[in-house]
């Protein structure tokens, strides 16, 4: 690694480059921070020998927005909207982790209905995130159409989110102990419609991609890694499940109401790019399953139904479990009790954690983000040693790194 960075950087006069003898040995290529397939501002100092990658060193920090320092200068409620930006492709997960951390410290109880809403929104968000991964992964491999299809369907999810929260990507929807508003009428039907529609779309994706011989050539047997290495490097999520470990927070430590729905945890066998692809595609189907069950089981049913029951004077409809706002706290003056907790959630990329320490002031004493991509990115040099240069895009795409989560 040091070889790549310690090369002398002398400034040569114009024209000297071409007169110099080209060293037939290794070549250092600086990929990024602006490069079409580094998905943001990752910089990879790559040493290649012909087309073979000898060494690769990721350099991060180009998207560092001091989210952790911001937490210490803003009140908890003030800080809350900005954490959508930690991992902007699945902002509900960020929010959930942060909100849950404080709920655990303060002992706030979350109504059941709200937990179901959180589950539905998070699973929809997981699909949206995987869709973006699917599109960009195929784009990295050179196929253009799947990206547009994925974005088309992602838009449908965003429209649902916009009806619910008012924003398409930065939701700021969950609150400590609940959420800021109930679902609009007909929102659950909209979610179900999306599920029915998306089931066919995902079949189309698979028809285009899954058994395409070129896609198989590009992914099968590429970036093979065993589970022990991944775990030792702290890699979680679909990347780890592609290597055959059924590690899923939703199963192991069920949060929200994941213990009340049935779903499978798809795991791969070979631990290559193709398995990671299969796992994510299967996860989207599982998410659909969860959403369908959750919509069926949500206490109080659709908002319209709940409103009607309340209007008719049904006392049970005013049960705290059916309130979405839950235990309201005054957001202006709220001081969290001292305490600390690390909450983790199964985000689309793995364990997303928020280590929150409060000290009785309105601000957080320390708020540390454990981004799944941060750990997942560390295995990239390991996977890339000795592979071909174009494999870099397949492997980097398949571990699904999102840079804002790495740099925070």
């Amino acid at each position, binding site marked *: *690694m040091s070889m790549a960075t310690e090369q002398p950087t002398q400034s040569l006069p114009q024209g000297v480059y071409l007169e110099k003898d080209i060293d037939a040995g290794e070549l250092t290529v600086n990929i990024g921070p602006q490069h079409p397939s580094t998905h943001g501002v990752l910089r990879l100092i790559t040493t290649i020998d012909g087309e073979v990658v000898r060494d690769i060193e990721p350099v*991060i*920090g180009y998207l*560092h927005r001091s989210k*952790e*320092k911001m937490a*210490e200068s803003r009140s908890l409620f003030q800080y809350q909207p900005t954490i959508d930006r930690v991992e902007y492709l699945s902002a509900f997960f960020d929010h959930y982790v942060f909100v849950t*951390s404080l709920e*655990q410290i*303060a*002992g*706030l109880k979350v109504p059941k209905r709200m937990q179901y809403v959180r589950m539905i929104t998070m699973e929809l968000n997981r699909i949206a995130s995987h869709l973006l991964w699917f599109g960009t992964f195929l784009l990295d491999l050179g196929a253009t159409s799947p990206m547009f299809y994925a974005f088309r369907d992602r838009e449908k999810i965003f429209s649902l989110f916009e009806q619910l929260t008012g924003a398409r990507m930065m939701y700021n929807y969950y609150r400590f102990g*609940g959420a*800021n*508003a*109930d679902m609009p009428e007909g929102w659950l039907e909209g979610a179900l419609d999306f599920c029915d529609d998306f089931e066919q779309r995902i079949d189309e994706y698979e028809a285009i991609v899954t058994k395409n011989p070129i896609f198989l050539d590009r992914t099968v047997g590429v970036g093979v890694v065993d589970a022990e290495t991944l*775990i*030792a*490097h*702290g*890699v979680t999520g679909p990347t780890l499940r592609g290597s055959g*470990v059924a*590690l899923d927070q939703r199963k*192991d*430590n069920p949060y929200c109401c994941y213990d009340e729905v049935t779903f499978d945890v798809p795991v791969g066998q070979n631990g290559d790019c193709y398995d990671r692809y299969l796992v994510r595609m299967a996860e989207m189907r599982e998410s659909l399953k969860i959403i369908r069950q959750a919509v069926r089981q949500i206490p109080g049913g659709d908002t319209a139904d709940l409103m009607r029951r309340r209007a008719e004077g049904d006392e049970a409809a005013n049960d705290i479990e059916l309130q979405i*706002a839950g235990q*309201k*706290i*005054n*957001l*202006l*003056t*709220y*001081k*969290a*009790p*001292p*305490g*600390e*907790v*690390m*909450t*983790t959630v199964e985000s689309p990329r793995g*364990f997303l*954690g928020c*280590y929150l*320490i*409060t*000290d*009785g*002031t309105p601000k957080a*004493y*320390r708020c*540390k983000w*454990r981004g799944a991509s*941060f*750990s997942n*990115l*560390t295995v990239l040099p390991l996977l890339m040693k000795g592979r071909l240069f174009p494999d870099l895009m397949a492997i980097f795409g398949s571990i699904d790194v999102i840079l804002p989560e790495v*740099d925070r």
Partner: protein
Amino acid sequence: MSDEPKENDKPKPSDGAEKPAKKAEAAAPPPPELGVCGKLLEGAGLKPVALPADAAGTETVQVDGGQLKQACERLRDDAQFDLLLSVSGVDNKTTLTAVYHLYSTKTKAKLVVKANGDKLPSVVSVWPGADWHEREAYDLFGIQFDGHPNLKRILMPDDWVGHPLRKDYTVDDPRLVWNER
């Protein structure tokens, strides 16, 4: 928009202590006892100090800086904590603390290990994934990890002065003038 915030009962009255959370809780009466992992470490000849469990009830032990690496090895090999979630630095105003959040993919257990000091042994040899986490803690808090293969700044620019997440860090860097409005 029916849920306009109202003044409700606050969950707990806070005495507004500016002290760090850990100390405030450590002062509370029944002193915490060693849990399963703490006993395991004790059995291995180390001297873990039990800390109150965190809000989720996760066992928390404090390990002396010099024994950190042995403790981590024991935890990985004997208690099957094979996944290091994160290494978080915490500035307690008097000392720096590195907080290790461990997870076991086999037993699904969690554990929090804390070590005080600004010079700690690196656990990269125990969990390779600690590499970047330790670099981050070094970058933002200035905790020196002995034995780390490549301890340099990771998030901040290489020529940055100071460690930004320390409580005594003041923003008087002339390069930040553009940020002042």
